[in-house]
């Protein structure tokens, strides 16, 4: 089945720094999503981005479907950005989301 690999697995930033998180998939996926899981366990939708580029405030994401990867950019990081970032997508007509293992981000003041 499709594998989704996220990198880096862990990241520590100083407040104000920028970062790029990557999601590689072994085959074509549809409906790629990025989520932020906060320290209380809530999964928050960041982007629904099957292809192209989207921006929302300090966050932006780019998916290059033909090359099977997606990037999440965090600029001017804040302590509230801490948590785990997941990417997930599904393949073909299968609605089941295949998840990466996540990137654990800690932003220090």
């Amino acid at each position, binding site marked *: 089945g499709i594998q989704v690999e996220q990198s880096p697995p862990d990241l520590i930033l100083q407040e104000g720094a920028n970062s790029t998180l990557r999601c590689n998939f072994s085959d074509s996926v549809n*409906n790629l*999503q990025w989520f932020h899981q906060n320290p209380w366990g809530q999964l928050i939708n960041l982007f629904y981005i099957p292809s192209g580029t989207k921006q929302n405030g300090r966050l932006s994401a780019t998916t290059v479907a033909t090359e099977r990867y997606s990037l999440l950019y965090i600029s001017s990081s804040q302590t509230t950005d801490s948590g785990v970032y997941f990417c997930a997508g599904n393949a073909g007509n299968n*609605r*089941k989301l295949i998840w990466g293992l996540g990137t654990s981000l800690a932003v220090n003041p």
Partner: protein
Amino acid sequence: EAGVAQSPRYKIIEKRQSVAFWCNPISGHATLYWYQQILGQGPKLLIQFQNNGVVDDSQLPKDRFSAERLKGVDSTLKIQPAKLEDSAVYLCASSQLLGEQFFGPGTRLTVL
């Protein structure tokens, strides 16, 4: 627009007891999902409904877990009897058919 609602938020039970979780999806969302998330891992799909029919329950431990969505709207997930390894966060999500999935706040289950 109201999000996905779940209750309870927290539950502590002893092993071999029963527990039930409730989920109300976003209005108009035909597809409803139950996930289990063990600490440090990504969510694992337990069961997926489209309206009131089961689309995928291949990873549901059917000897102890059951779920229903009788009227195609809200859903319940039950564990009977619970084991220690069932301690996890149970997440409900909904989507319009093949689209973007939205998650509820989850129920954190501790089995002692």
